[in-house]
């Protein structure tokens, strides 16, 4: 985990396969096939960037949750809930949209607190705990919206709107900001104590505890962060969609998120989830899905592709021998 020195030789190592794959795909899709024209349209590219920006923000926290050895399947529901709460507050209760967004964001982050407390202090397996909170979040979102999306009169918060749809020198602001956030996160992850302890906990909880690393507090923090990022994505999605929704991305967001994390983990850090890898994974998946949509391929192919990609990512990580914890095989058949 020594600092990477950027050089062409360094970039051609196997860790960076994902980047090359992405570039190859972008080039291929732009030139070949009946969708190539629509694909390489400027508007399409911008949409890709915007879309991947929101998704990337949503799964930023997830990367670290998986890295530390936990699970969170509630992030997509939290994002949806945030959008719905915003819409509800703004439309049904007449709260100024800026305030509504803030309140919803806070609420979403609180769910992360619940997740963290359950996993770190009550010792509920994080998978099942987040299934529960995710379901509760989705349920609340549906209750608020009466089972349907809740449109917000646009022109509400011009700030957020500008953020989502604006651009700087032709590149969507959203994307730029996401890139900045990712770069900062990558810095935190690779160059600071925070990241060091993150990976230490992920690999060997016992050793970390012995070294005095505060396991429970840190776990709690990451769950809160994960939901906070998901909430932020929810805020952005609200602006992008112009309404509150009870489900983002047609229910595929959860799978997409994990696929991006696992693919990114394998390819960039030989099995360890990391933000840059996830980011590239997100862009790759967005490009892929965009192309599939443009090609008018059947839904089932999309899902098959999603499932297959996830399984590939998981298998690669699982079979690469990268052990998350230094403990012997858990006798209680938790893996």
């Amino acid at each position, binding site marked *: 985990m020594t*600092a990477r020195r950027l050089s062409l030789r360094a970039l051609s190592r196997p860790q960076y396969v994902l980047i090359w794959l992405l570039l190859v795909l972008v080039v291929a899709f732009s030139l070949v096939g009946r969708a190539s024209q629509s694909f390489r349209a400027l508007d399409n590219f911008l949409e890709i960037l915007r879309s991947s920006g929101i998704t990337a923000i949503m799964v930023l926290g997830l990367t670290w949750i998986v890295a530390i050895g936990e699970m969170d399947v509630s992030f997509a529901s939290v994002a949806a809930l945030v959008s719905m709460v915003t819409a509800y507050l703004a439309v049904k209760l007449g709260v100024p949209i800026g305030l509504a967004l803030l309140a919803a964001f806070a609420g979403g982050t609180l769910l992360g607190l619940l997740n963290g407390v359950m996993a770190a202090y009550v010792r509920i397996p994080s998978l099942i705990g987040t299934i529960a909170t995710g379901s509760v979040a989705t349920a609340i979102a549906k209750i608020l919206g009466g089972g349907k999306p809740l449109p917000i009169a646009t022109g509400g918060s011009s700030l957020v709107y500008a953020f989502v749809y604006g651009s700087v020198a032709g590149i969507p602001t959203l994307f730029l900001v996401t890139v900045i956030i990712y770069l900062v996160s990558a810095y935190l992850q690779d160059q*600071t*104590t*925070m990241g060091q302890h993150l990976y230490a906990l992920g690999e060997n909880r016992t050793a*970390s505890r*012995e070294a*005095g690393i505060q396991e429970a507090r840190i776990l709690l923090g990451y769950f809160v962060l994960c939901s906070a990022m998901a909430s932020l994505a929810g805020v952005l999605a609200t602006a992008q969609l112009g309404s509150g929704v009870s489900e983002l991305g047609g229910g595929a967001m959860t799978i997409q998120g994990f696929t991006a994390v696992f693919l990114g983990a394998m390819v960039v850090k030989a099995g360890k989830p990391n933000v840059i890898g996830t980011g590239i994974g997100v862009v790759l998946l967005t490009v892929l899905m965009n192309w599939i949509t443009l090609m008018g391929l059947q839904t089932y192919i999309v899902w098959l592709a999603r499932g297959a990609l996830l399984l590939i990512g998981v298998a690669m990580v699982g079979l690469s021998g990268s052990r998350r914890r*230094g403990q012997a095989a858990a006798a209680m058949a938790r893996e």
Partner: protein
Amino acid sequence: MGELKLEMRGISKRFPGVQALDGVDFALRKGEVHALLGVNGAGKSTLIKVLSGAYPRDAGTLLLDGQPVEINGQQDALARGIATVYQEPQMIPSFTGYENIFLGAENDGKGTFARIRRSKLREKAARLLELFPVDVDLSVPVGKLGTVDQEIVAVFRALSRKISVLVLDEPTSILTEREKLVLFRLVASLKEQGISIIYISHRLEEIQQVADRLTVLRNGRNVATLEVRGAAMSPLKIAELMLGERMETVYPPRASERGDPVLSARGLGLDGKFHDVGFEARRGEILGVFGLVGSGAEELAKVLFGLQPPTRGSIELDGRTVRLRSARDAIARGMFLVPADRRREGLVPAEPIRFNVSLANLNRVSGFLGLTRSGRERLDVSEVVASVGVTPPDIRADVATLSGGNQQKVVVAKGIFTRARVYLFAEPTAGVDVGAKAGIYRLMRELAREATVILVSSDSQEVYGVSDRVMVLFKGQAVLDRPTESTSQEEILLCGVQGRV
């Protein structure tokens, strides 16, 4: 040298049912290497744990630099400059040596978001290397390092804080000869820097190389403190001190009749663990295999039970060569292992006795379509449980509610229930009190009447007392293989400890 760095006076510590430390006096001089010896259960690790703050003591005083102190917990001990390096230290395999060394203290503990300057860590590590010169590459991921290098990293982790007392717990049990020299040089440089070292080991030859004084613990008491290079030192004397004049446990009488060989091994080897082990285990006989950690005895038991295939050699059952593919396979062939870690490997704690006892031979209690025959099970299991002496004998009670000795008896009952012809026992009386131990030895003797029993243990007294024939493993090789009556406890211990008498 001469002034006392650390003094422990009259330290006592009791656990439920056993007095682990009984008024132990221990004195560590400044800058010396002081070895601590004793058989399993003599109190070495308890004493160390009291010192390192892991356990509170019941009685006695601790003096550091002549001042009485209270050590409240592990962080406190570290703050006072007392660090311990245990066997098989926990590492983060993908982190480099210097990252592991400074884990948790990367920026002197301040600032979660503070930048880690790896160059600075490397410098600090390099400075450590200057003080304690060892040839180790600290910029390689620790997972790729050899065992001695990992241990060195663990030692350096202790050294990275300001310490004045370092405890090394069996540091060489997993090292080769050459690797040990590296460790000894490190210990020497630690001495030069004025660090006082407590060195727990059973390897007499090493102690003679590296220690200044030694203390022998037995049954929670300090029985002797000697100068290593003094006149009173001899391996035999040490063995006697460790064992005591008479055996306190009552062992059942040995067998006089010997049957045919049931299980034999020829040239059995597992790369890196043991090689060229051969024996014949006969019906009516208990074969005892004595070996300390790192001798290969543990691994031998696993290979014999089919948990790992040997890299060389063969196993024969009733004269026919067999290849054991799994524990399931071994059990099907009439073998059974009572494992060393009964909680993790031997029992399903949340289930009742009857569940556990019948688990390895469900055939016996199931009938049509696999349905369990409850009445039959109740009778058979109760019978076995009674014969084994589990108290209380309610087979509906969850195993987790039983004491250690009784839990072990349940595991043995499980084996008996399979009607095995070969019983392997690995560390059968670990964590079992004296009274229950006698019961288990009785069981072993009874089992040996119709079957053959192989005992693998790191307790030389136990092996000597129970077995008809003794084999001692040292560094993967059988250095002794004789009928028990033709050898002595001391001889067995010495062979296990230094490879020869």
